[in-house]
């Protein structure tokens, strides 16, 4: 477990979480270095989404601590959140605002210079500029996912937390997302990618972790091919 020497983008120590009597996380540790991409997989109910929400600061763990760039993700410290980008199963977009209005508002929340231009650039990167005036509720599932990704990446966060980012994306959009994430990793950002479809994230990942019952059963560098890893997976999750 590395110390808080400033080299980690994200560091979690001893994360425990319970919902009522149900224990969801059991003392998880996690570190993420610049340029590192951690692919997290595991069966349903393993605690992956809870882990992601705690790492994003949306939930407080029952015990344990999360640090972003060495700063504790404490309730009053809003600046630590500036470096986090989160993609969830929900788009986080307002149905009564157009895509451009949604992203411009998000850019204002992150106090970006020229929010309108930042929003436009994000929509262009996502291939959505021609749909800038459309309302989210009128978009297909795939287009909505692209808009949600554009919102998550808008402020070029150092730590990206993505829950099933490739869901509903067509092949060109998935390739564009991979390329954008790779470019971010090359510039020193870090990525935690939660997925049930490891094959989609394999090329991006530098580490692979498997979460079962709120505990890591594997956390290792990604080596070899996905074909070599997949036969191990049922044994790891006890299937």
């Amino acid at each position, binding site marked *: 477990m590395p110390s808080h020497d400033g080299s980690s983008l994200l560091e979690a120590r001893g994360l425990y979480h319970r919902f009522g009597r149900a224990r969801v996380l059991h003392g998880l540790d996690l570190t993420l270095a610049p340029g590192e991409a951690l692919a997290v997989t595991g069966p349903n109910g393993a605690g992956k989404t809870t882990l992601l929400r705690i790492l*994003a*600061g*949306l*939930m*407080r763990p029952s015990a344990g601590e999360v640090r972003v760039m060495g700063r504790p993700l404490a*309730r*009053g410290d*809003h*600046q*630590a*959140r*500036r470096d*986090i980008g*989160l993609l*969830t199963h*929900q*788009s*986080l*977009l*307002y*149905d*009564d*605002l157009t895509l451009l*209005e949604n992203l411009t*508002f*998000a850019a*204002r*929340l*992150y*106090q970006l210079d020229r929010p309108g231009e930042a929003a436009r650039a994000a929509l262009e990167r996502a291939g959505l500029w021609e749909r800038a005036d459309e309302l*989210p509720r009128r978009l297909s599932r795939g287009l909505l996912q692209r808009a949600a990704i554009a*919102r998550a990446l808008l402020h070029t966060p150092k730590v990206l937390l993505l829950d099933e980012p490739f869901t509903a994306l067509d092949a060109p959009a998935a390739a564009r997302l991979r390329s954008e994430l790779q470019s971010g990793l090359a510039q020193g950002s870090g990525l935690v990618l939660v997925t049930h479809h490891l094959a989609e994230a394999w090329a991006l990942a530098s580490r692979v972790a498997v979460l079962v019952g709120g505990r890591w059963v594997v956390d290792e560098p990604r080596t070899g091919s996905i074909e070599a890893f997949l036969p191990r997976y049922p044994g790891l999750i006890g299937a």
Partner: protein
Amino acid sequence: MLSALRLALAIAAKDIRAELRSKTALLSALVFAALVLVVFNFARDPTILSPADLAPSVLWVTFALAAMLALNRAFTIERENAALDGLLLAPVPREALFLGKLVANLAFVGTVELVTLPLFTLFFGVSLWEVLPGIIAVTALATIGFVAVGTIFSAMAVRTRFAELMLPVLLLPFMVPPLIGAVQVTSRLLAGRPLSEMLGWLRLLALYDIVFVTLCTLAFAAVVDE
């Protein structure tokens, strides 16, 4: 401080823009206010109670009920697509988030009140023209207080299964002091009483505003952060 104010204004502008596009809450509250006035108008017996006796209570019951509808939308808009997560993820001080929501809610409730006043004069035959500045002042004083409390309760209620029911249950007891004060001042205004007879109530309303706007601003983080 300046950036927090800018953030608050951005949040308020977002809410107002979204509401102007959908018009759902504003129109519902306006129609509801008109219906309440119609019901009160036909339910009273003019031979027993003069309009001037009943008017202040009717006005403030209408304002309170219509405000409740408008306040319900404050955080239901954040529930769709988990937009509230987007707000909470951003580096926005929770005080700025509360102030933004408060400003937007004041704009909605203020609009409903502004439209309700002429309808009220129409149904009850009460002339407000001479006392309009006083009516506007007492409306502003009372509205700020209960909208501040309504904003924080709306944030609490939206996480429950029955948000639309929870808000009135939580809010109505806290609305009692400003409503009593507002009814008292309004009846004195309509009766042409001197300002000195209203000062005590006006002080109560101002104190309520100061205490609850401060308390709600400080307590908001504890309500929205899990």
